[in-house]
């Protein structure tokens, strides 16, 4: 039997709950306010500390010859000020080069920051490991690449991401293989960061990429094709052509077509044209039509002109845009198509207007 609950108990409970909720809300609001105030105070304190030593840093970076007095002043800065100044110093590395950069690296070495970072990559705190990786990527030097490569296998995703970025910044060819293997591992490294890093490394990244073109995993092969396009090595065009021709995965073929467009190798034009055939998957046809525009080959013009009349809207639209990119033959073909009637004429007119607008935007003040 369910015992009846008196209305007065209900009311009391409700009041207690409301008071508790109000107390929690007030406490939360206070915590937020105090937190914000504390952040403002620490930011202001940090800014004051930085301001006290920053003029010397600027003098060190901009000075004609490394002024020993300035260097000694910075080396003698108290630890609290240096903790505030160190991020500003590291940021300088990305803004200057030559003697100015050498002077900053020298300062970081004398302050022990580089040595601390070398030790920091082994620390338990993920924040310290990430910060150390960032500093090592900015400074470079012997042993740096090896330490950063080790961090590619870190248990923390953020640390792995910072390590990839740092390796891209160093652009040391020694790290190319490790970065490519990063695409193959489970869980993989952040794909877009690896791509950017490989792009920064350039042609030195090609051999490990070529070694991975036969991997069983479709996604890995697709990423390898994409990376080859980003690296831009013309010599890899035949490999990409084979991927485009015979790979069983549409994704791989699609990225190979895009890569060929990016590389701009004339040897690939016929195969990219073949990929626009109506027998091919739609996504591949669209990408191949786009790649033909990027290739800029005149012999692709009649093919693209035919595709502007394709019954599939997206194929026709992309083909028209690609024709607009091939000057002067593509634009002439578009102009002829625009004078006719039907959907091809509409696509051609739209592409011409878009191309003109783009040209105008480049010359007219926004």
């Amino acid at each position, binding site marked *: 039997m369910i015992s009846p609950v008196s209305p007065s108990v209900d009311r009391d409970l409700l009041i207690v709950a409301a008071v508790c909720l109000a107390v929690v809300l007030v406490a939360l609001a206070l915590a937020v306010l105090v937190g914000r105030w504390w952040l403002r105070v620490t930011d202001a304190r940090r800014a004051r500390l930085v301001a006290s030593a920053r003029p010397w840093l600027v003098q060190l970076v*901009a000075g004609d010859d490394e002024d020993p007095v300035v260097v000694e002043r910075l080396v003698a800065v108290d630890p609290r000020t240096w903790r505030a100044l160190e991020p500003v110093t590291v940021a300088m590395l990305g*803004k*200057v080069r030559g003697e*100015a950069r050498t002077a900053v690296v020298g300062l970081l070495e004398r302050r022990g920051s580089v040595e601390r970072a070398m030790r920091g990559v082994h620390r338990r705190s993920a924040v310290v490991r990430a910060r150390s990786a960032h500093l090592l990527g900015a400074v470079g030097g012997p042993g740096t690449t090896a330490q950063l490569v080790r961090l590619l296998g870190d248990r923390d995703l953020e640390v792995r991401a910072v390590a990839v970025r740092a390796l891209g910044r160093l652009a040391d060819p020694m790290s190319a293989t490790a970065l490519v293997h990063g695409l193959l591992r489970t869980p993989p490294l952040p794909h877009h960061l690896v791509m950017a890093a490989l792009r920064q490394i350039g042609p030195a990244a090609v051999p490990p990429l070529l070694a991975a073109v036969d991997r069983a995993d479709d996604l890995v092969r697709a990423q390898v094709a994409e990376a080859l396009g980003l690296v831009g090595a013309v010599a890899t065009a035949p490999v990409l052509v084979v991927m485009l021709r015979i790979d069983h995965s549409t994704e791989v073929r699609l990225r190979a077509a895009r890569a060929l467009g990016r590389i701009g190798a004339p040897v690939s034009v016929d195969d990219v044209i073949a990929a626009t055939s109506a027998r091919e998957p739609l996504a591949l046809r669209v990408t191949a039509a786009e790649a033909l525009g990027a290739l800029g080959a005149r012999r692709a013009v009649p093919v693209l002109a035919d595709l502007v009349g394709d019954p599939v809207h997206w194929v026709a639209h992309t083909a028209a845009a690609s024709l607009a990119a091939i000057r002067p033959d593509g634009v002439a073909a578009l102009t002829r198509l625009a004078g006719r009637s039907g959907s091809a004429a509409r696509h051609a007119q739209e592409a011409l207007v878009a191309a003109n607008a783009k040209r105008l935007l480049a010359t007219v003040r926004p």
Partner: protein
Amino acid sequence: MTTVLVADDDADVRDVVVFKLEQSGYDVLVAEDGATALAMARDAMPDIAVLDVMMPRMTGLDVCRELRAAEATAAIPVILLTARAQESDVEGGFDWGADDYLTKPFSPRELVSRVRAVLARSRR
């Protein structure tokens, strides 16, 4: 004294450039954005302007174009400072009459050499 107008929204770059130019004997005017740089150029008529490409309110390219469009400021030589990723902007900069460009990360010493060279060319 030769006056150089320096415009960059990055305080580190700005301070380094200003220090280096002052150390080399130039009188330096400083702006933190494009619109201020343009106003300062019209008021003070500097001998040369060093403009960052990516700035708030008005880009370095816009400032360059405005300088070239007005008769009074058309002859002020312009050096553009650009990130490597924006090097395609340099083409647009030359179209609008920029005299030289420098990519970031930059060498302060090289910047002064470029300023000297552009000034020498413009005075010939």
